[in-house]
């Protein structure tokens, strides 16, 4: 008996809902095995993670804090993936955005928040966008593989930021820690109540709404979808792929840049190392988010909040149960693998060839 895949004419709706749910459960089961191998009770660990992330208002506030840059990066990556441009450089674009926003502060310009914050956003957007335009331009002009260029530029961007915080921008009073001085009040994003949730979340949600209209309803969004689905048909339809790649990457990198800006202006209040968590960088998680969300803006918001929960839960068990924080990455990756496999089942049907059928007819 042999097993093979047969294309379904219509995708299975039921499976499209079922696949992500089952994938999350399966990845938790696999991760449980890993946890057991280190002598930890996985149920205790999962319970603690869930309770911390979604059981307390402080915890949920922290979830939203993590979700904010994830939504922004995720939306940017989503847009690029929609046209099958493999931007895996959100991490670098986020770093450049943080740098660009900080550069505005470092000019020593003394302005009210009403001017300062928009200027920093512009700085963050521009720096992220320019960084993303490098691979986009190389792709359009020379057909250079964007997976490699966007990714390698992440390393360069991180070193670029390191240069400034170890060098010219280093706060002389920081006892040798690589960071800038704390930003003046005018350069800090408004926070809500006594939580760390800041105005960046509102920006992120507004941008999600805007992107919904751009991507799903506009004629330009139609161009992006056609280009992503069948580039030769896009050319046939008179769409300019090169121009669209540049525009999409401008937005994609710009959004990641804004993510960097809100991180320094809303959370860190200064530029420093690891503005994105070292163990599970936002820019990489954004790739998983965009894919799990099936390149849908509402999906990006939802999945980002769930991933935010995973971050908060992961940090909790790292502190309270001394578990390696790497389980966050492991769970993320496992979910995506199961969804990848599950997606195939919603597009194809598993068929078992029976030998006896051959002699039956």
């Amino acid at each position, binding site marked *: 008996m042999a097993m093979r895949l047969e294309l379904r004419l219509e995708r299975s709706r039921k499976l499209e809902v079922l696949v992500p749910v089952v994938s999350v459960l399966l990845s938790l089961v696999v991760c449980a095995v890993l946890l057991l191998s280190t002598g930890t009770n996985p149920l205790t660990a999962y319970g603690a993670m869930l309770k911390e992330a979604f059981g307390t208002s402080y915890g949920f506030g922290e979830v939203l804090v993590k979700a904010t840059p994830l939504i922004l990066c995720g939306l940017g990556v989503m847009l690029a993936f929609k046209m099958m441009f493999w931007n895996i450089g959100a991490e670098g674009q986020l770093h450049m955005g943080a740098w660009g926003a900080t550069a505005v502060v470092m000019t020593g310009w003394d302005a009210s928040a009403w001017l300062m914050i928009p200027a920093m956003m512009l700085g963050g957007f521009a720096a992220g966008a320019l960084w993303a335009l490098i691979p986009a331009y190389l792709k359009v002009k020379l057909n250079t593989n964007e997976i490699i260029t966007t990714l*390698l530029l992440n390393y360069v961007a991180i070193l670029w930021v390191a240069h400034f915080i170890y060098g010219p921008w280093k706060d002389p009073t920081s006892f040798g820690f690589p960071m800038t001085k704390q930003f003046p009040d005018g350069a800090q994003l408004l926070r809500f109540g006594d939580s760390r949730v800041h105005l960046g979340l509102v920006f992120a949600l507004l941008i999600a709404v805007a992107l919904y209209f751009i991507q799903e309803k506009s004629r330009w969004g139609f161009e992006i979808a056609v280009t992503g689905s069948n580039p030769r048909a896009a050319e046939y339809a008179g769409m300019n792929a090169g121009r669209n790649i540049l525009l999409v990457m401008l937005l994609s990198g710009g959004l990641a840049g804004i993510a960097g800006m809100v991180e320094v202006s809303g959370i860190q209040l200064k530029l420093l190392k690891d503005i994105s968590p070292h163990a599970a960088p936002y820019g990489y998680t954004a790739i998983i988010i965009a894919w799990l969300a099936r390149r849908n803006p509402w999906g990006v918001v939802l999945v980002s909040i769930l991933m935010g929960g995973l971050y908060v839960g992961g940090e909790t068990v790292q502190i309270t149960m001394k578990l*390696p924080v790497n389980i966050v990455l492991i769970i993320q990756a496992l979910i*995506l693998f199961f969804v990848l496999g599950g997606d195939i089942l919603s597009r194809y049907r598993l068929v078992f060839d029976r030998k006896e059928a051959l002699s039956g007819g």
Partner: protein
Amino acid sequence: MEGSLLILVVPILQAAVRSGTPILFVCIGEIYAERSGILNVGLEGLMLVGAIAGFTAGFSAGNPVVGVFAAAIAGALFSLIHAYVTITLRADQIVSGLTLTILGTGISGFFGKPMIGQVGPGFDQIAIPGLSKIPVLGQVLFQQDAMVYLSFVLVPIAWWVMYKTHLGLSIRSVGENPATADSLGVSVTKVRYGCVLFGGAMAGLGGAYLSLAYTTMWIEQMSGGRGWITLALVIFAAWNPARAMLGAYLFGGADALQLRIQAVGIEIPTYFLMMLPYVLTIGILVLASRASLRRRIGAPAALALPYAREER
């Protein structure tokens, strides 16, 4: 005058070979995978899994050779995920590879936790009698560790298998036109599984070189982008194992040079120097893509495309 220049240059070249070797292993493996039509962008994750598996096994056994075997096996097993998802389930190869990198980073960090700060067994430099006495080349090529010599043996074998044997002909055909190979009785699935697993084993070796020879310890995310650099070098090498050697040592040269300049203390900011290997790789990639635009040659025709016989 010339003598003093040599004293300066020879150690850099020697370091270039050392620094290029892990990439060379990974590059040969990826060339095989891509020649068979499977793009594996999960090299970074595979190297990390190889590095921690090699280090843990080598450390426990007190013998680096055990570590090398463990790393190759771990790399092959880990790449089995990619093979299953992309060959059998025909999922997107890029997404699967990215996920493999993320998973590899997570898993290596998870199992590497207890190994942080340990010093493991390593490969010593062995001067090859006779050959190491050749001026310049002797010191550059023949005063190295056993894994470097292993790579010297592997490259010609990989080249010979690829271009001179039936296996190589099958691999190249499967990557160019799987339907053709299939119609002549070559199993596309077997060839692809074989190449991906071999690629995984080689990436494991590349990782092991980092934790057993280049250093003798485990550091989280110690591959530092070498997996991604390898992807660029595969293109630079035009999918030819012999040219991979050139590319790997070129990168190794940049790496060695930036470390050396830092040590000498020349007035270039450290972090800009550290960018050198990445920027150089992007530059190489740009040159390679310009060349392929001009000569209209490129990747294997079926690269990253799933193959299904009965689809109509």
